[in-house]
């Protein structure tokens, strides 16, 4: 048995994991930190984030405004104390990244440039051209090399958490280049494994985004919270789902249907803004859930076009100069050219919504602590409570910095103060069990395969848990997932090799994905209202129902059965639930509020 002893294991080498590892190393240089990832850190999916990272920056902006935009965007399902903490700390984290070398785009005077983003009242999105996630990830990775306390374990896949009663004391991992199992004993474990977008068929995510960490915690009794809220990004390329950043619209791109009509004005986001003059929180700068839902209606009405068998609308950037596009959106120009053969300066980009982000995840408190002692979660795999029912674009890159730091510091504090586990017999038994399970998964299949089963799952999810959902579709999806789980129990890995066994890795990832998919479907079925990214078409469920559902859903794992659902109150500190308004409706509401405030002032 190979055993490593360390103080903190960080599972996942993306933005959140790297930020956490650095924070832990800075908190206490004497700690041993193992940064473990199934891929080299710079391959992590943070790399594909394009648009930017939000923080209150301009003098005219305020923490209260960022707070209000985030809570409104979340359809009031965000934890308001968490949002307060986040908006207060986002700026210093972006500055920290600047000090570490991130090549943020600048104004002429050398100060930080900010751009518009959907659902944000003011320009507050820092960016590094249109490769913000790439630059954040590489800056963090390169900076992490400064810290001798951080020991990387590249290309290790975690199979299970080591748990003793209610505390976590390490992980069991598969070393991909040897096929060996290794036991890693630690005082704190931070899960930073990213989202689960790959449980859907059309998504903007890399192949590695399979929900591993969510399933690991879930299987040990930690709740997955708000899993029904899956973000469809309104602008993915047809077929591949490759992301075309919201920053395009921040820079002034518009969306048109097959008739060239800017259809968003028909969905409560108008009036139409003049070309080249985007307005915050209006038209193309509405929130992602509303934009993806508008696409769905256009498709139903037959106003979408077809591209290689996919329904599409178009993103029009032609009115922006080529020079501007090359400066602000060079990656988009490259992607459009390579993957749909379009030069955005002269032609329309065909786009359609694609699954992008899992708002829900492993339930944590504001300190990124889960309900298991010693286990922390951060970033997309976690639900710290920032995004509620709909995430605003550019909040997640800031989130992984703000809460990555919190997770690292908390895990370091815990590692310094807790007694490590001395129960070697117990962890050896868990290690043995994993080894036995692994050896049992090899064999031959009659007419099934990992690839087939995975495709059946992703199509079922797309069908049942898409932009609009109903009881029939969800129930059918639930049954399909149960059948797939049954098939998975009999599925075998045909490749018996040890070194870089891709099929084995995909088999294990599929096991994680299926558990997460069941949690998404169960939570979607249980939430019989419409809120944010979760929209039900059943009669009586099409509106938000604060009386019954101003609640987080909590899904608890049941081996071999559907997850058990329970509900948790939402923390509301200063912004009571109200109607979400964008476009002119927002304008009217603000005017009314101002008039009321003026009238109030006159009475005083």
């Amino acid at each position, binding site marked *: 048995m190979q055993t490593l002893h360390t103080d903190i294991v960080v599972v996942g080498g993306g933005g959140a994991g790297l930020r956490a590892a650095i924070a832990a190393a800075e908190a206490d240089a004497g700690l041993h930190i193992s940064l473990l990832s199934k891929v080299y850190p*710079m391959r992590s999916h943070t*790399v594909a984030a394009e648009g930017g990272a939000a923080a209150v920056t301009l003098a005219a902006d305020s923490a209260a405004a960022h707070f209000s935009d985030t809570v409104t965007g979340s359809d009031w399902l965000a934890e308001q104390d968490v949002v307060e903490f986040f908006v207060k700390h986002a700026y210093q984290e972006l500055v920290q990244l600047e000090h570490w070398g991130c090549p*943020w785009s600048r104004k002429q005077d050398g100060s*930080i440039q900010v751009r518009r983003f959907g659902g944000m009242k003011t320009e507050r999105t820092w960016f590094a051209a249109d490769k913000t996630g790439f630059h954040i990830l590489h800056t963090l990775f390169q900076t992490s*090399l400064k810290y001798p306390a951080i020991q990387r374990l590249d290309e290790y896949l975690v199979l299970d958490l080591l748990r003793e009663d209610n505390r976590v004391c390490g992980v069991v991992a598969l070393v991909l280049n040897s096929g060996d199992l290794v036991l890693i004993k630690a005082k704190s474990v931070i899960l930073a494994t990213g989202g689960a977008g790959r449980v859907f068929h059309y998504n903007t995510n890399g192949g*590695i985004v399979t929900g591993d960490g969510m399933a690991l915690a879930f299987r040990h009794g930690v709740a997955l919270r708000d899993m029904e809220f899956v973000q469809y990004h309104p602008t993915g390329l047809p077929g591949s789902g490759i992301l075309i950043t919201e920053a395009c619209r921040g820079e002034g791109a518009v969306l048109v249907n097959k008739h060239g009509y800017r259809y968003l004005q028909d969905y409560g986001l108008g009036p139409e803004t003049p070309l080249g003059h985007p307005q915050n929180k209006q038209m193309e700068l509405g929130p992602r859930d509303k934009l993806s839902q508008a696409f769905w209606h256009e498709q139903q009405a037959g106003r979408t076009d077809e591209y290689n068998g996919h329904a599409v609308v178009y993103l029009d950037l032609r009115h922006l100069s080529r020079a501007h596009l090359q400066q602000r959106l060079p990656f988009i120009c490259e992607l459009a050219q390579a993957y749909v053969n379009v030069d955005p300066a002269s032609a329309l980009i065909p786009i359609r919504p694609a699954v992008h982000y899992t708002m829900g995840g492993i339930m944590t408190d504001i300190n990124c602590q889960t309900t298991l002692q010693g286990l922390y979660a951060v970033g997309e795999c976690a639900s710290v409570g920032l995004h509620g029912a709909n995430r605003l674009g550019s909040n997640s890159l800031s989130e992984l910095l703000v809460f990555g730091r919190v997770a690292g510091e908390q895990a370091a504090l815990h590692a310094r103060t807790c007694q490590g586990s001395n129960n070697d017999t117990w962890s050896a038994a868990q290690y043995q069990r994993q080894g036995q399970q692994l050896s049992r998964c090899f064999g031959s299949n009659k007419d099934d395969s990992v690839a087939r089963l995975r495709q059946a799952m992703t199509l079922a999810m797309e069908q049942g848990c898409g932009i609009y959902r109903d009881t029939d579709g969800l129930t059918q999806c639930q049954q399909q997932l149960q059948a797939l789980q049954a098939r998975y129990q009999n599925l075998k890995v045909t490749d018996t090799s040890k*070194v870089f066994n891709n099929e084995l890795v995909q088999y294990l990832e599929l096991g994680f994905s299926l558990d997460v998919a069941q949690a998404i479907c169960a939570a979607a079925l249980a939430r019989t209202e419409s809120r944010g990214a979760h929209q039900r078409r059943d009669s009586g469920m099409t509106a938000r129902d604060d009386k019954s559902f101003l609640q987080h859903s909590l899904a608890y794992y049941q081996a071999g059965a559907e997850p058990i659902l329970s509900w948790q109150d939402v923390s509301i500190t200063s912004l009571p639930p109200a109607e979400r308004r964008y476009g002119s409706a927002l304008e009217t509401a603000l005017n009314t509020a101002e008039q009321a405030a003026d009238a109030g002032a006159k009475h005083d």
Partner: protein
Amino acid sequence: MTEYQLRIQRYDPEQDDTPRLQRYTVSGDHTTSVLDALLSLQQQQDPTLALRWSCRMAICGSCGVMVNGIPKLGCKTFLRDYNGVIDIAPLAHFAVEKDLIVDMTPFLAHLSAIQPYLINDKDDKAPHKQTPAQLAKYQQFSNCINCGLCYAACPQFGLNPEFLGPAAITLAQRYNLDSRDNGKASRMSQLNGNNGAWGCTFVGSCSEVCPKQLDPAAAVNQAKVESAKDFIINLFKI
């Protein structure tokens, strides 16, 4: 749909003494990338084929392979651009671990060696000022996705694995040229050495294969100029 013939270099260290070639037929259309083809092979014909990939949008840097002997990103290389049998092999100049997977450890060691982070003694809380012109000096060199194609193209790295190589020297230049950095002096010892910039014989293949058009050869040349200046300055110090 068109049928394409692929000839893939296979190597399983548990079975094979030396690499072998295996032929496959895949169907694809004008959008099918080399990566798409490899994944469809893996899913439908041969699950034992081992490769690395993730983002399939040319930003994560995982899927570098040799296509007809030239280093390419699998996800940004399209079958439509090839006639006849397409040869796919692991990146040259790296040790093959299995099939299309190579050992990237030396590459990462070279990146780490050049201290790829800002070195300065700034301790206030404000962001640095950096004008667009100052940013433009190093911006291009900050776009490296660490795919390793330039190492597979570099004859010097092929001869001498200790040579820092194009990506690491480019990364050193990226920080040396950053107006916020004061760490050039400590990076120069790496760049001046026999395995630093002077190891380059300016073949320029690195720039030809770079999928992000970074022009690493220009970075290496700049590093040589810096190294020469450093040498002369040190002469006067003696």
